[in-house]
């Protein structure tokens, strides 16, 4: 089979071509610093750190595309905005030169010598060489966001009062964007993302009045230079999606505030691919890996396959747990995992029906439960079941195994009661023993044997033996007592003797002739609680 590189997948998605699977682009910005253990400021100022952080992210998240850098203050810094640096965020803009006496005419288009630009482009080139199969995204500040950096929130008033001036600021921003785009493309970026989050703050009319012109020129320029383009926005920008697509980017990328199906319906007919919109805070930062997988699948379902790129809504929070992103990668790459999550989404456990498993595994036999999607239709499940099937004969009579396919509701409840989180899983006597990985025969045998040994020990210490002596007259009773006592004391065993002399009771034990002897061993199965029927059923089988 021909393996398509991530870079190819991104290209195909952006060209609205049929793809093998949904491409995934984690927007690793300062999160790269987290992966290296350095703070955001140190990270963003060092080409080596950025190179190592992105490289590390490529290693552990196996993305199809990744940004070189996610910092929308690079251009502003060069143009004279003061930056306020932070330990766990990109810096923010703390002063607005055009609002503080600087003239627009005095601002110069940046060069490679200015600020961090040279370092960033050099890093891009190194990343390109090191990761030929991953699509590299070069993120540039959109002209409207740059205008806000330069002017402060006065830009909103000026849009009403000094339109011409705002147009000129936007024109300047366009030239800055083109310079940055060209440098990123020269150094190997596949996709130029024009990131203009502040456009979420304006109406479609204002968007078309001020943003459409410069943005369209930027996207045409990127196309001319042979690269792909994306228009990034975040926040409440739903009203502007159509206007964004009119600017002819290859892709638009949005955050959780806009429904993916809405974007699909607007963008695809206009020939624009789209991406997003995983929730950054509630899911990726604060959620569990399972929640991230469920959410990623929901995004993929809402978006459909054509022209869709799965991505977070915006720059990943620095402290996003790597496990969460790895879980998304696993979901994207693994059909089986998607099928598992989809089945579990459809079959939610019924809390009121969760069986009480506290006494599970107290039977004489060892119970092996295999929780699967369905072994008849999925390969990993089948291997897991076969592994157990193959060792079962070794434990004939003392092992019982069964498969629980989560396509059935009771299996979902059972799985939840055993706290199983991923599939397929082997549980031995109700305890999770092997998850996802098919155990080698010897390991499985060892695990079962360990459990048998454990049970044997437990059994020896738990059993309470008793001997019942059935007699009908005094003489018979004394003689029998003597024989039995002798045997017990010879063995030094701790066995109780009980005499039963009432004829009615004797008959109730099925004894027809005396003297008769019966041995009994008692075993505590549960106390202080009402056991569930499932559990008692196993105990009954044991004594049948």
């Amino acid at each position, binding site marked *: 089979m021909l393996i398509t590189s991530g870079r190819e997948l991104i290209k195909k998605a952006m060209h609205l071509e049929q793809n093998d699977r949904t491409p995934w682009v984690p927007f690793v910005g300062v999160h790269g610093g987290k992966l290296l253990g350095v703070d955001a400021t140190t990270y963003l100022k060092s080409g080596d750190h950025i190179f190592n952080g992105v490289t590390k992210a490529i290693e552990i998240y196996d993305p199809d595309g990744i940004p070189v850098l996610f910092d929308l203050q690079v251009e502003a810094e060069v143009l004279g905005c003061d930056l*306020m640096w*932070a*330990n*766990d*965020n*990109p810096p*923010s*803009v*703390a002063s607005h030169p055009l609002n503080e006496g600087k003239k627009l005419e005095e601002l110069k288009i940046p060069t490679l010598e200015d600020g961090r630009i040279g370092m960033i482009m050099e890093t891009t080139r190194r990343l390109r060489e090191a990761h030929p199969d991953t699509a590299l995204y070069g993120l540039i500040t959109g002209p409207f966001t740059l205008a806000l950096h330069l002017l*402060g*929130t*006065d830009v*909103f008033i000026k*849009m*009403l009062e000094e339109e011409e001036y705002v147009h000129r600021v936007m024109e300047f921003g366009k030239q800055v964007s083109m310079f940055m785009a060209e440098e990123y493309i020269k150094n190997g970026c596949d996709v130029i993302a024009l990131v203009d*989050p*502040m456009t*979420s*703050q*304006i*109406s479609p*009319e*204002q968007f078309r009045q001020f943003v459409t012109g410069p943005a369209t020129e930027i996207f045409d320029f990127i196309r001319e230079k042979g690269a792909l383009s994306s228009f990034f926005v*975040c*926040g*409440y920008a*739903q*009203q502007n999606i159509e206007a964004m697509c009119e600017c002819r980017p290859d892709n638009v990328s949005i*955050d*959780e*505030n*806009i*429904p*993916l*199906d*809405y974007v699909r319906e607007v963008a695809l007919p206009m020939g624009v691919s789209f991406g997003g*919109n995983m*929730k*950054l*805070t*509630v899911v990726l*930062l*604060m959620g569990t890996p399972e929640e991230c997988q469920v959410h990623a699948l*929901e995004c993929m379902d*809402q978006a459909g396959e054509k022209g869709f790129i799965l991505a*977070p*809504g*915006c*720059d*990943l*929070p*620095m*402290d996003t747990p790597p496990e969460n992103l790895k879980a998304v990668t696993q979901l994207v790459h693994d059909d089986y995992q998607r099928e598992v999550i989809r089945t579990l989404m459809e079959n*939610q456990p019924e809390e009121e029906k969760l069986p009480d498993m506290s006494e599970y595994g107290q039977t004489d036999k060892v119970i092996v439960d295999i929780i699967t999607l369905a072994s008849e239709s999925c390969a990993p499940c089948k291997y897991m079941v076969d592994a157990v099937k193959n060792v079962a004969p070794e434990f004939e009579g003392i092992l019982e195994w069964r498969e629980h396919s989560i396509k059935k509701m009771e299996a979902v409840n059972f799985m939840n009661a055993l706290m199983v989180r991923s599939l397929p899983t082997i549980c031995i006597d109700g305890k999770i023993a092997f998850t996802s990985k098919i155990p080698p025969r010897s390991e499985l045998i060892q695990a079962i044997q360990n459990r048998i040994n454990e049970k044997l020990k437990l059994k020896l210490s738990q059993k309470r033996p008793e001997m019942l002596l059935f007699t009908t007259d005094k003489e018979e009773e004394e003689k029998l007592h003597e024989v039995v006592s002798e045997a017990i004391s010879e063995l030094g065993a701790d066995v109780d003797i009980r005499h039963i002399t009432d004829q009615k009771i004797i008959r109730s034990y099925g004894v027809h002739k005396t003297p008769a002897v019966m041995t009994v061993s008692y075993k505590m199965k549960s106390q202080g609680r009402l056991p569930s029927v499932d559990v008692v059923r196993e105990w009954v089988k044991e004594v049948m």
Partner: protein
Amino acid sequence: MSKIPFYIVTGFLGGGKTTFLKHFLHTFSGRYRIGVIQNEFAPGQVDGAELRREEEDFELLEINKGSAFCVCLLNDFTRSLKSFIGKYCPDILLLEASGLADPIAVAEVLQGSELFPLLYLSYIWTIVDAENFEKTDSMITRVERQVRVADKILINKTDKHPAPLDPVIKKLRTWNPFAAIEAVTFARATLDNLDELKEHEPHAIKKKEEHRRFEPLNKPGTGTVALKTTWPISRQNLENFIREMLPLSYRIKGTVKLDDGTFVSVQAVMGEVEYREAGKLMQPTELIAIGPGITPKSFGKRFHEYRKKGG
């Protein structure tokens, strides 16, 4: 441990948020330990310094300067707020959200596992500038969103707006049919003893006379959750969901996207639910619920379970 009520004041740039803040401090400082949170996207960026010059007694936390317009940049907020609370033990917290901030994004951050046990979102004031209301029509996107989430809308600077307020109020009502509306000058809203808040949380807040201090909350379980989703729900399923959540909540409010593409505004207070059609909107479903039995996970989980039900 009792939870700290968290208030948000939001509104137009230059609408009077900082003036409101001063009024708030003037009314309550000395009675409560007040923690004020500001982000510095405010124009001129003098707010923090200006506030510090006030005589009032309060502690100030300045967050993430300039970046709170974006959900993604709120993550250090948790950490700084937590340490701020640990250091000053405020009775109440007031966030002056920048004109570009998204209160729902803030509410979502408050429901994270670290902050949820410490505080709950109690009340949102949105300040509308009477003088500039019509002029700012073109910035409606932002204004509308802030109005939608308000518990109380303050129409400020009415002295500079001699015309009748009816058209302004009418417009505000189409965005938020439920919020209280108060016309004021110099952002002097009615704040006496936070009576208006008591109405909503009858058992939650009461004043301890002897210490002239808040007794912030004696219901440690009280929590606020914010649900944001782009998935629609049927009217019937929404009503069933709200009915199930009612006994657990003091208040549920928000705007919900229905499966026919239209929106409905919901307000439930102490067992009474009201629905108002809100037409077609360009936004996701946003619900805020406050109550003793509310947890972020259960609220969201149940919403989605109802959403997926047939019919």
